[in-house]
C-alpha cells in the first residue's frame, strides 16, 4: 500500500493548520510586525531541507557501504527534495530580507550557507545525470553527497566567523511561546509532506534504475561441440 499518501495528506493538513494559526491567530512579531509571520513558512522549510540533506548523507553512506541501488535511489530522492526545499528557502529568505533588512541578500551566515549548500547539492544532481553506467553513478553520487554534506558545517562556521568580525545580525534565535505552537505544527506538516514526496520520488527513481540494471536472462549453454577423433 502506498503509505506515503496518508502521511502526505496529514502533512498538508498540519501545514494548513500551522500556517493558518501563524497567519491569523498568532500575534505579530515585536520588531517586524506582520512580516514576522513569514517565520512559519521559512523556518520549517529550513529545518526540513536540512533533514533531507541529513537523510541523503545517511543514504549515501549506506549506498557506498552496500553498493545496492535501493540506497542509491534514496540518495537521489532525498538530495532532490533537499535541493527543491533549499531553492524555496533561498527565495523565501530573500523575500523576507527585503522588508527586514532592506536588501534582497545579506551575508547572514545561515543564508550564505544555504546558498553554498544549494550549489553543492545541485552539483550532485548534475553529476548524477551525467554518468550513464549505473554502478559508477552510484559511487559518484554517494561520494559527492557525502563530501557536500560534510562541507555544510564547515561553511557555516567559517562564514559565521567571517561575518562576526563585522557585526552580528539580529537573527530569530529564540522564538517566544505563543509563536512556537504554529511553528512546530507547520514544521511537522512540512516534514511529513517532504517524506511523502521523497518516498514517491524514490519509487520512481528506483523503478527507473531497476529497469536499467535488470539483468536479462542468461543465454543458455550451447550444445557441447563434438570433435572428430584426432588421430
Amino acid at each position: 500500500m502506498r503509505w506515503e499518501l496518508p502521511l502526505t495528506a496529514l502533512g498538508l493538513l498540519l501545514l494548513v493548520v500551522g500556517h493558518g494559526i501563524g497567519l491569523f491567530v498568532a500575534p505579530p512579531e515585536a520588531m517586524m510586525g506582520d512580516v514576522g509571520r513569514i517565520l512559519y513558512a521559512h523556518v520549517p522549510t529550513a529545518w526540513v531541507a536540512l533533514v533531507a540533506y541529513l537523510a541523503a548523507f545517511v543514504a549515501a553512506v549506506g549506498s557506498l557501504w552496500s553498493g545496492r541501488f535501493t540506497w542509491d535511489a534514496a540518495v537521489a530522492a532525498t538530495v532532490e527534495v533537499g535541493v527543491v526545499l533549499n531553492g524555496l528557502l533561498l527565495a523565501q529568505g530573500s523575500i523576507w530580507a527585503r522588508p527586514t533588512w532592506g536588501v534582497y541578500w545579506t551575508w547572514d551566515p545561515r543564508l550564505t550557507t544555504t546558498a553554498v549548500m544549494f550549489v553543492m547539492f545541485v552539483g550532485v544532481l548534475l553529476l548524477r545525470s551525467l554518468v550513464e553506467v549505473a554502478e559508477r553513478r552510484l559511487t559518484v553520487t554517494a561520494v559527492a553527497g557525502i563530501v557536500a554534506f560534510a562541507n555544510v558545517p564547515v561553511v557555516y562556521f567559517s562564514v559565521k566567523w567571517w561575518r562576526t568580525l563585522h557585526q552580528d545580525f539580529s537573527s530569530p534565535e529564540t522564538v517566544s511561546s505563543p509563536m512556537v505552537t504554529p511553528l512546530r505544527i507547520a514544521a511537522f506538516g512540512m516534514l511529513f509532506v517532504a517524506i511523502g514526496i521523497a518516498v514517491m520520488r524514490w519509487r520512481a527513481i528506483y523503478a527507473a534504475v531497476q529497469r536499467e540494471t535488470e539483468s536479462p536472462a542468461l543465454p543458455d549453454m550451447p550444445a557441447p561441440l563434438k570433435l572428430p577423433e584426432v588421430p
Partner: protein
Amino acid sequence: MTPGSGMITGGWGFVWAVYGLTWTVVIVYLSVAWSLSRRSK
C-alpha cells in the same frame, strides 16, 4: 522574536508572496512526484 505591536506596519505583501511561493512549490512538486511515481508502477 517577541510578540508586540510591530514597528514595521503592513508588509503583508511580502507575507503573501512567501506563503504563495511556498504552497505553489509544495503542490507542484507533490503532484509531479505523485504522477511520476504512479507512471513508474
